[in-house]
């Protein structure tokens, strides 16, 4: 009985300790400013937007999904 009580609460305590350790670790993280993060996201988009076939459509003949081709298999 005594052990039962101890086990339940020690389990809760160890769970709470883990949560505290996790938060301490997360608090130590090096963060950058949102302005810098946003600038980097924009730079990535800008660098790759010309290669993005859904934004800069390539001619239909080069996009296999857009070209109209009829497929038949010979049975």
């Amino acid at each position, binding site marked *: 009985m*005594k052990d039962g009580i101890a086990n339940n609460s020690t389990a809760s305590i160890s769970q709470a300790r883990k949560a505290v350790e996790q938060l301490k670790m997360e608090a130590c993280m090096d963060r950058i*400013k*949102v302005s810098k993060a946003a600038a980097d996201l*924009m730079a990535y988009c800008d660098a790759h937007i010309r290669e993005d076939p*859904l934004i800069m459509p390539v001619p239909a003949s080069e996009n*296999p*999904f857009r070209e109209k081709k009829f497929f038949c298999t010979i049975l």
Partner: protein
Amino acid sequence: FPKQTFSLCCKPFRCRSLPARRKYMRSPLVPEMATQEVQLNETLSHLKTESDTLKTKLEEERAKLHDVELHQVAEKVDGLGQFVMKTRRTLKGHGNKVLCMDWCKDKRRIVSSSQDGKVIVWDAFTTNKEHAVTMPCTWVMACAYAPSGCAVACGGLDNKCSVYPLSLDKNENLAAKKKSVAMHTNYLSACSFTNSDMQILTSSGDGTCALWDVESGQLLQSFHGHAADVLCLDLAPSETGNTFVSGGCDKKANVWDMRSGQCIQSFETHESDINSVRYYPSGDAFASGSDDATCRLYDLRADREVAIYSKESIIFGVSSVDFSLSGRLLFGGYNDYTINVWDVLKGTRVSILFGHENRVSTLRVSPDGTAFCSGSWDHTLRTWA
């Protein structure tokens, strides 16, 4: 439909939190036990206070760096033109709700899985079915294509993830070569091969994620931290290292270190289950889609949410999200049968796509970005370009 009841009745086996710890007895039989109980109680409440203080401090640290909004910085960026995206192929053949799909690296093959236990491999150009296998369970909620294109992994209510090698011989019985890799104690919600055919990452209704060796079926690492079912996961683009992000019914999105099993970052701003997470192509951010009808963008280096994609008129949950190749567009599949296309930087919706006749359950952009495929409870998959 009131939003809440709709989501509850159509989402089986989800949103069950892990059972709460049993409360210990209020009236101990022996005086020593009383003292011990009081001490343990004190330690517990002390830890809780410490935890709350740390959480507040964490929020303060994050807020200090919140000097501007993404959409403000993006005002100087050119707007996107008009979009003409249509259904280019409709893949018919599933007998029930399509739950999951994945592209092969060859940019033309697709694997999809459905509620009736069927897993089908399609050629998305020709719409031909190349392979079909029937799983021994229903609700196959997860499927993934191996990087080599030579195998597919799938699982669901069987609590397992199984790998089927794909044979060139169409007549061969795929089920005979099935290999059980992962074993969870609840349903499998998502799976993904890592950079090779040798390892699989899984997430489950049992609240954990796990990394497995395909050949031996051995558990290599497990990831504990979610307080409820984990519904989705995505691996970081290979250049950025060994991390992955997971989302769950506890409204949290966690970023994990695959080697140590440690949760390195956690984000809790959604108001309901997170159904889908996807990394931004650079690996510096990820998007999430939730039952709260919003998609959100979280930047990993700023350690915070940097954008919300929502509209008052959108009240149904998002089941699935993915980025276009450049990361400028975010596609979201919604439970109101539509696909909304968002300008990631400006935060505005650029297009809404109609076509499916029931909720969109899964959505992935092809590996070369030329098209994206959506699967729906209307039993079909559509490729759009």
